[in-house]
């Protein structure tokens, strides 16, 4: 019985090989995606493959890419990490060693990316991740050739830049709606990996803008009743309460804040005007919102509307984090351009090309990576007046990190 099986299998293989050359000139370049399409982090997980998938489709529709004189079509190979680190590791091992992808995008969960990098980097696979928390491992000597993160790229601005531009945007947009210059801010942040990391930068950014920030209030990640935290914030009678970073928790906390009249205005990080409109949210005080990197409900970025129309048309769900897809979409195009410029898929030549190119993306017309493989671009902040009118503007990041 066994031998028969063996014969059948090998026959099929030969046929496969024979069939293959018929499409010789359209070789396939595989791009891997690891994201949480189930489990607790699912809200961020759906956006990543949708963003990459749209870029791959656009590139293939335009005839694919021409590398070293040969034409290639891209193929996205996506894996669900189920918000479980062991599954993320297994998916990465498969993509790197079995499927042999040329590049990997993901994941949205900070500590999964760190574990995945330990597999992609030794295998010289270009790895893009939209976690500003990668700053911890992207140091000058870790990214130099031969370093342990030479092929790792952070497709989200450095945290001091994102926080700086966000803080500046929130304050400038809320001032006209408040009718006076806000002076005191209180931050309410989820007590998890991302929350702890981001809040230290945003706190410094607010201080750099001259804000008095008497308290950062950390709440346990799965909190539903925010009233004690909000009352504590109210006791400091702040001009603005800044909610960081999880959209779902923020939307749970806002009605309770309005009920308590905790502050004169609010800032909801990671809540898109699109969600604000869709859920018909309203507030009797000004509310600022920011999107990473560009908003889909309302945007001052001309290309954003076209992108999101195509993005949602492709079937992606309207989510709190739909804009996160842009942290990956632009960089598929960027990578394709780098391959064409390098004229080969050799990882080192590709990294060189990525570091020298100025790519025209949706988020900005001049996307470049700095020497430590981190991108720099503006962040969009919007503000909703009590009446409901929403205005947005792109905020340029500060040149370098604030002192102290």
């Amino acid at each position, binding site marked *: 019985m066994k031998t028969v099986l063996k014969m059948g299998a090998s026959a099929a293989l030969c046929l496969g090989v024979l069939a293959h050359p018929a499409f010789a000139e359209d070789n396939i370049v595989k791009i891997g995606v690891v994201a949480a399409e189930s489990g607790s982090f699912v809200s961020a997980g759906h956006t990543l493959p949708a963003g990459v998938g749209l870029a791959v489709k656009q590139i293939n529709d335009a005839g694919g890419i021409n590398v070293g004189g040969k034409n290639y079509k891209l193929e996205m190979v996506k894996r669900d990490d189920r918000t479980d680190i062991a599954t993320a590791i297994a998916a990465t091992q498969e993509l790197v060693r079995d499927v042999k992808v040329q590049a990997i995008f993901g994941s949205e969960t900070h500590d999964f990316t760190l574990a995945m990098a330990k597999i992609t980097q030794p295998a010289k696979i270009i790895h893009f991740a939209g976690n500003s928390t990668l700053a911890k491992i992207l140091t000058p000597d870790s990214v130099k050739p031969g370093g342990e993160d030479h092929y790792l790229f952070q497709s989200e601005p450095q945290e001091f830049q994102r926080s700086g531009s966000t803080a500046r945007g929130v304050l400038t947009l809320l001032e006209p709606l408040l009718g006076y210059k806000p002076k005191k801010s209180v931050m309410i942040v989820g007590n998890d990996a991302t929350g702890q990391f981001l809040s230290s930068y945003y706190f410094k950014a607010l201080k750099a803008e001259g804000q008095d920030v008497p308290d950062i209030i950390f709440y346990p990640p799965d909190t539903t009743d925010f009233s*004690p935290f909000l009352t504590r914030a109210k006791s400091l009678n702040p001009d603005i309460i800044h909610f960081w970073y999880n959209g779902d928790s923020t939307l749970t906390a806002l009605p309770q804040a309005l009920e308590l*009249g905790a502050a004169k205005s609010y800032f909801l990080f990671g809540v898109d005007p699109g969600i604000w409109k869709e859920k018909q949210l309203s507030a009797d005080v000004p509310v600022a919102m920011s999107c990473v990197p560009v908003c889909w409900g309302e945007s001052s970025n001309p290309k954003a509307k076209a992108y999101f129309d195509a993005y949602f048309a492709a079937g992606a769900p309207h989510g709190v984090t739909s804009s996160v897809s842009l942290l990956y979409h632009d960089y598929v195009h960027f990578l394709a351009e780098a391959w064409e410029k390098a004229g080969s898929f050799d990882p080192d030549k590709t990294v060189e090309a990525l570091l020298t190119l100025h790519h025209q993306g949706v988020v900005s017309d001049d996307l470049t990576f700095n020497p430590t493989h981190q991108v720099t671009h503006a962040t969009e902040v919007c503000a909703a007046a009590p009446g409901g009118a929403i205005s947005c503007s792109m905020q340029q990041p500060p040149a370098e990190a604030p002192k102290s």
Partner: protein
Amino acid sequence: MDIFIQQILNGLSIASVITLIAIGVTLIFGLTGIINFAHGEFLMIGGIVTWLAVSAGLGFPLAVVLAILAVGLMGYILERGLFRFTLERPTNGFIVSLGLIVVLQHVVVLFWNPNQKSIPRPLTTVWEVGGVRIASVRVMVIAITIAVVALSFRMITASRYGRALRASVEDRDTAALMGIPVRRYITGVFVLGSALAGLGGALLIALFPITPFTGGTMVMKGFAVALIGGLGNIYGAVAAGLILGIVEGFSAGYGFSQWTDAYSFALMILVLIVRPHGLFGGTSGPRMAS
């Protein structure tokens, strides 16, 4: 000063939802010995039923009644179908409830996706008294909890049914010998505890959005309160619920906010070591009829 009163009010509304769960736990665990760790999921399903009813256009009061009936019925089916066979070995009942946690959570995820679900607030008026904001919906939750506590307290202690129930806890065999239909009472208590969880779920979704996984964190606090108060002791559950609600409210408000969840666990461990039968004395589950 108004901040202090505001924090007490916040503590009260947290305490009332936790107390509702704790009463259900203390009744079921204390009086029937069934360790139903899936009690949090009963609460969540109460919320989901309310959400389904409200989004189907029903009014909130009707939705709450539906939630109570639905979860009470679920309690009946599960007690008759599963827990009835584990009375002699409570640890098996506990393991069955672990399986139920996984099943109930993921059945809800399967049918109604894992995202947050919320309903428009049934009462939206917010009174302002001297700087203290009092939300009518929270007052409603506190009022309903007080009413339910009074009702079940009277029923368990004062009525004939209550006395028979407590007798069946002391010694199941003797109670049966005295003609008390012990089996029927255990089912009755389980259904009552489940209905309370259904009500708790309905009130919870009236206050905040819930997800299929909300039950998990809530049940631990419910068990902590039930154990701190003393199993089977409703008075204990209410007192411990208040203590924990206020402690959590003040820890979030004044103390180290990131440690808020730690207090209920630390308090429970401390109390169980010092007084295994809880602060106000309760049973340690019925004597095994071995």
